[in-house]
Structures are given as C-alpha cells and as structure tokens.
C-alpha cells in the first residue's frame, strides 16, 4: 500500500505541478507524450507477471539456475532496451503516423519519459531479487 501511494505520487505529481505553471494546452501535449512514453510499462508488467513463476521455480533449483536467470535477465534487458531505443529514435515518426498535426508538439516529451521508464523497468529486477534472497 505505501509503495502504491508513492508510485502514484511519482507518476502523477508532475502533471499536477505543471497545471500551476504551464498553459493547459501544453499540459495536454505533455500528458499525451508521457502516455506514449510510459506505454512500455504495460509490456514490462506483462513480462514480469509471466516471469515471476519461472523465477521462483529457478530459485528453488539446485544446479544451473544461475545461468538460466542470467540468460533470461539478459534477454529482458535487451528486449526492453531495444524497444526503448527504437522509441527514442523514432518518436517523431510514430506520432506523425498515428496522430494529427496538433499532437506533434508532444514529440519532445516522449524520449526522456521513455528513457525514464527504461530505468523503471530495470528497477524491478534487483528489487525482486534482493527481497527474495533475504527471505531464504
């Protein structure tokens, strides 16, 4: 529960603060860019839901588990990193293809938010890893 509240504050506080200092139209563009940028989060959540049972099973395994975990984590990091890199490089093209011109102003916001959510995606692994190890 405290983690959920802190996560919500972390995700939503910027738009609440923005409304005080920036025109509402710009807040709307920022919100659109932010939503595109955090889109990767849905993939990350899905992967982690699928990965958790395998991870805990591997943690109980006696031999060969470490190599399998390293391989899976490497695939995860490469996949998420590749998607993020493509998003950073082609954010303009993506918005141009999908949205009308009045949304083009959102493009500059996408790359930093996307890179931020890359760190968010990578934070999940060490946090889960450490909490699991501690319980043993």
């Amino acid at each position: 529960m405290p983690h959920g509240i802190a996560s919500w504050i972390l995700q939503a506080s910027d738009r609440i603060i923005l409304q005080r200092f920036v025109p509402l139209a710009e807040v709307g563009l920022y919100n659109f860019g932010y939503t595109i940028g955090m889109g990767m989060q849905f993939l990350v959540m899905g992967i982690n839901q699928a990965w958790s049972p395998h991870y805990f099973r591997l943690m109980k395994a006696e031999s060969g588990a470490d190599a399998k975990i390293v391989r899976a984590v490497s695939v995860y990091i490469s996949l998420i990193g590749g998607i993020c890199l493509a998003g950073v490089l082609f954010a303009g093209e993506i918005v141009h293809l999908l949205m009308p011109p009045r949304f083009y102003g959102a493009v500059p916001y996408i790359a930093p938010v996307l890179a931020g959510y890359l760190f968010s995606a990578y934070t999940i692994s060490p946090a889960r890893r450490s909490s699991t190890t501690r319980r043993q």
Partner: protein
Amino acid sequence: MIVPLLTGFAAALNILLNLRLIPVYGAIASAWVTLATYGVLFSVSFRWGRRYQRIRYPLARYGILVAMILASTVAVQRLGILEPWR
C-alpha cells in the same frame, strides 16, 4: 519495507525538482525530471540490491546499452532531429 521508502524518496525528489525547474524551463523540464528521478531510483535500488545478490550479471554489457539509449535521448533533443515534428 525498503522498496516503499525508496519509491517515496523518488516521489519527493520528483516533486522538489519539478517545483524548482518547471517555472524556469517549462514542461520539458518535467520530462527530464522523470528521467532523472527514475534514474536515481534505479541507482539506489541497484546498489542496495547488490548486497544480497549472488549471481554475477554481465553488467558492462547492460551498461553499454543503457549508455547508448541515454546518449540517443540527449542527441535527439540537442541535435535538432525533432525539429520537423515540432
């Protein structure tokens, strides 16, 4: 218990940086603050988590990928690559 504390610290940092930088640089500051905040949260979580890890990951390779993404993020903003889309 440490994870909510770290996230709370990141949320407080996010609010402070936004209040400080948005009035000066506008909405784009908020996007960069998002990157900075999640970067700090990752760094602190990673350092804390390593104390309990027994698995050795190829961190240098992961670091190269992250460095490429960060360099690309700065480059697309600074080199005018986004100009056609503004």
